[in-house]
């Protein structure tokens, strides 16, 4: 790979993948839980929750990044407590970048999972109950497997969204080479320098290839999954 890519390019690529992966890992359990709450439960604040979840779709990414800074910055509401109690901070780290893209990708993920949950035939769950399965077993053996295509789609969307995340990331964790400089940020950086056109084209093609591989891979996985599910 080092023959094909410059150190700057491979650094940005690996960082992008790492951030995107962790973005999916942290948002998946929360995303499934939120989708379940929104799809299956009626409670006061249902509308508010769904507004908050879907907000990053319409709010400018810079605003999201700024809010994250206010919330998780070292002097932020949660950030200060994190720093004082555990001595950790996520500002200016790749973990922070993962959080920023997780928030930005969250609505896409929740939406995909929720649609899939809505499509699960509740009568199958009833049938499982009459066969002696408690709520938890029904969830694990019926609901979750039948939702799997939606969960996969949601994870892929969040992953792809993370690869392209720019505004919230640069606002929240800045543009630090090797730490928070993902592919889009690297592309932005080279464009700021004179003679940056050639490296910019290479980075753009790299981003494109990455996205295509991710989407194609998920499509193959989805096909196999549908076959497995017999639907």
């Amino acid at each position, binding site marked *: 790979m080092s023959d094909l890519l410059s150190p700057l390019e491979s650094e940005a690529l690996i960082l992008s993948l790492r951030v995107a992966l962790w973005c999916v890992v942290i948002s998946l359990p929360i995303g499934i839980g939120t989708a379940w709450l929104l799809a299956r439960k009626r409670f006061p604040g249902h509308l508010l929750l769904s507004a908050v979840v879907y907000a990053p779709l319409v709010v400018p990414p810079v605003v999201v990044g700024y809010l994250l800074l206010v919330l998780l910055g070292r002097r932020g509401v949660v950030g200060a407590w994190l720093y004082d109690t555990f001595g950790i901070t996520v500002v200016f780290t790749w973990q922070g970048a993962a959080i920023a893209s997780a928030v930005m990708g969250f609505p896409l993920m929740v939406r995909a999972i929720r649609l899939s949950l809505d499509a699960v*035939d509740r*009568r*199958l769950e*009833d*049938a*499982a*109950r*009459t*066969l*002696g*399965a*408690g709520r938890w077993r029904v969830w694990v*053996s*019926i609901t979750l*497997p*039948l939702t799997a295509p939606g969960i996969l789609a949601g994870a892929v969307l969040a992953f792809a969204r993370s690869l392209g995340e720019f505004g919230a990331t640069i606002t929240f964790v800045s543009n630090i080479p090797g730490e928070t400089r993902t592919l889009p940020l690297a592309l932005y950086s080279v464009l700021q320098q004179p003679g940056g056109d050639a490296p910019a084209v290479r980075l753009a093609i790299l981003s494109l290839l990455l996205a295509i591989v991710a989407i194609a891979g998920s499509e193959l996985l989805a096909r196999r999954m549908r076959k*497995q*599910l*017999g*639907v």
Partner: protein
Amino acid sequence: MLSVDIAARLGDFELAARFEAPSSGVTALFGRSGAGKTSLTNILAGLERPIRGRIALGDRVLFDAANRVNIPPDKRQIGYIFQEGRLFPHKTVRANLAYGLGRLAPEKRAARFDQVVDLLGIAPLLERRPKMLSGGEKQRVAIGRALLSGPDLLLMDEPLTALDAARRAEILPYVEHLRDAEKLPIIWVSHDVDEIIRLADHLVLIDQGRVTASGPLIEIINGPDFRAATGRREDGTVIETTVAAKDAANALTHLRFSGGELRVPGVNVTLGQRLRVHIMAKDVAIALDPPHGISVLNCLAGRIVGISDPDGADVDVEIDVGVRLRARITRYSARLLALKEGQTVHALIKAMALDRTGRDMAHSP
């Protein structure tokens, strides 16, 4: 014994049901579509919750609003076979069947699994997905799945409705086996008269969310509430008979009942077998004297015990021939014969009119 006394509100629909079902045999839950049959079975299974009342199965209380008892569906041990099968699409037939096995003692599971697979003839289907099954195969697997969850009671919600006549004929013998060999009490939800005559011993009528009558099948099915529930076309009399003789030379079977003997075509029965015969009111003619030179084989003498509104377009006459037999004739005929209560007449039933019922209603005790 299943005893039910509940009231429920499901959306705009109100349901009030009170009945008892014996702890063996098939109890039919009969009513028009929309009468509340499925709501009631869902309540029995614990999938819907009544607002008040009590449900007990034997000495197990399943629901008791007064004492805040509501056993969840997974603890009720009630097998439920749905109209649409509801097999899990992502599991093989084998995995579907095994889903409820956990309720059986571990050492009994394998033998019981093989026994049920054998009984339902589904061994060749085990590795298939539900998508690859025919409608009849799906229902057999659904029956097997419910059976393998070790139920104390089986709810069957119109399991034949989605099937064509041939597939129905394929499933019915299995249900009879469950009733007769497995001795499993069954609640059979249906709006098909032939089905319940063939299968049920006990009948619960439900109309617009209310139980209008319940009791032994023969009693209820020949009563006024059942006629109100079915509409005039199916009006008739159901008689329990025993195969008394087979006349192979003439391809006739002699059926004995409390009022004498009926001759029906076909000999595909065994001596001593019990058969229910459904005699449609429109298939019964009335003669004042025993007729001569007529092809009709069954002539039963009896006294008129009831005549419906003589000014209707047609007239229903009830004749006591040992059982109360219903005949439907035109108003003109009723006037011509000057029929009145207490009069002795002869009821004529063509053997051929009993062709279908005589054979299909096979019911072994």
